[in-house]
């Protein structure tokens, strides 16, 4: 009986992922084709795809490999791009932590933006743990399959795309589109502006270290500036309040 509901949840997860494939497929095609354009052989591209299982980190690595950035910078950047997975890890920790290692680790590897998007919504949170788990496994495994197949498609197509099409420009455009989608609060716009300006100013620093400087400056600006502006606004409010209180007490005294 229970087995039946779990299987139903698994297929429900798979079905819910299907509409998202329209976004995954072109992204995978871009990831595969750009690897070919960089001169990597198909085994290396697919090895990278399996090891990363993270499209934006893969594109970031391509961009830096293309620019001839040093090993350490590519490594740090690619992992930092994936730090958002820590949020997903924390979100699903109560659900996944009680599992055995041979179940927990493969599911952790399969965590992705799409899994988070589908499985962390209130509708899912209301289900029992077992149902949530099987729904998540359904989403995660079908996401993995569609990503890998899309990249294979991109590798197959890649060789037939002429260089005059400037396919490599799809990488910064993809990041730009993701950036626009990321900016949901004013502070995000502030962070990306500071970071972008710094990245342009410091792009001549050796070993692409300007990139790291820009990211750190952007995040620090995002952490400090809103607080700074808020305390200034608060203190000016307080001043006004103090003044009005003073006048109140004065008028009381006068009375």
């Amino acid at each position, binding site marked *: 009986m229970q087995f039946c509901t779990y299987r139903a949840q698994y297929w429900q997860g798979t079905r819910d992922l299907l509409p998202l494939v329209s*976004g995954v497929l072109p992204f995978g095609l*871009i990831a595969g084709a750009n690897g070919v354009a960089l001169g*990597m052989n198909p085994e*290396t591209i697919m*090895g*990278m795809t399996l*090891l*990363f*299982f993270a499209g934006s*980190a893969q594109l970031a*690595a391509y961009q830096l490999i293309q620019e001839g950035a040093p*090993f350490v910078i*590519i*490594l740090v*950047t*690619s*992992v930092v791009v*994936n*730090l*958002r*997975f*820590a*949020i997903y*890890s*924390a979100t699903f*920790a*109560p659900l996944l*932590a009680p599992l055995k290692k041979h179940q*927990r*680790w493969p599911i*952790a*590897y399969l965590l992705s933006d799409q899994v988070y998007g589908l499985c962390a919504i209130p509708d899912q949170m209301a289900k029992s743990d077992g149902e949530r788990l099987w729904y998540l496994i359904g989403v995660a495994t079908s996401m993995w399959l569609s990503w890998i197949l899309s990249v294979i498609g991109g590798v197959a197509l890649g060789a037939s795309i002429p260089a005059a*099409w*400037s396919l490599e420009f799809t*990488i*910064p*455009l*993809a*990041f*730009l*589109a*993701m950036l*626009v*989608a*990321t900016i949901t609060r004013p*502070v995000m716009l502030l*962070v*990306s502006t500071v*970071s*972008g300006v*710094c*990245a*342009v100013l410091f792009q001549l620093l050796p070993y692409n270290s300007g*990139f790291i400087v*820009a*990211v750190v400056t*952007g*995040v620090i600006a*995002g*952490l400090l500036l809103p607080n700074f502006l808020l305390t200034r606004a608060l203190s000016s409010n307080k001043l006004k309040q103090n003044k009005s209180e003073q006048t109140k007490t004065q008028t009381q005294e006068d009375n």
Partner: protein
Amino acid sequence: MDTLSLWLLFIIVGLGTFLVRLSFIELHGSTQKLLERSRNILALLPPAILAAICIPSILFSRPALEFQWDITQIAAAIATVLIARFSRSVFWPIVGGMVCLWVLRWLGKVL
């Protein structure tokens, strides 16, 4: 970069990414405070990283050392931003930007 160092890079990044994914699942129970403290920084990282990656390579055409402004690329980027504000997918903004780039380059050749 040669194939061997590429593989080394990919294996280390793959392992690092896996550890990030595993982090809070493995440490569950002992990390609520750390998480609360780092949540703010983790939320600000994506916009900072995405902007730092894409903005220089949009403004300037490569090879990077010459630092030539590229008007066609900037126009393509503006098209991408405009489409991205209306479309929830990442795909259509890229297509729109690329079409804009191709048309402008073609016009540049013709005129």
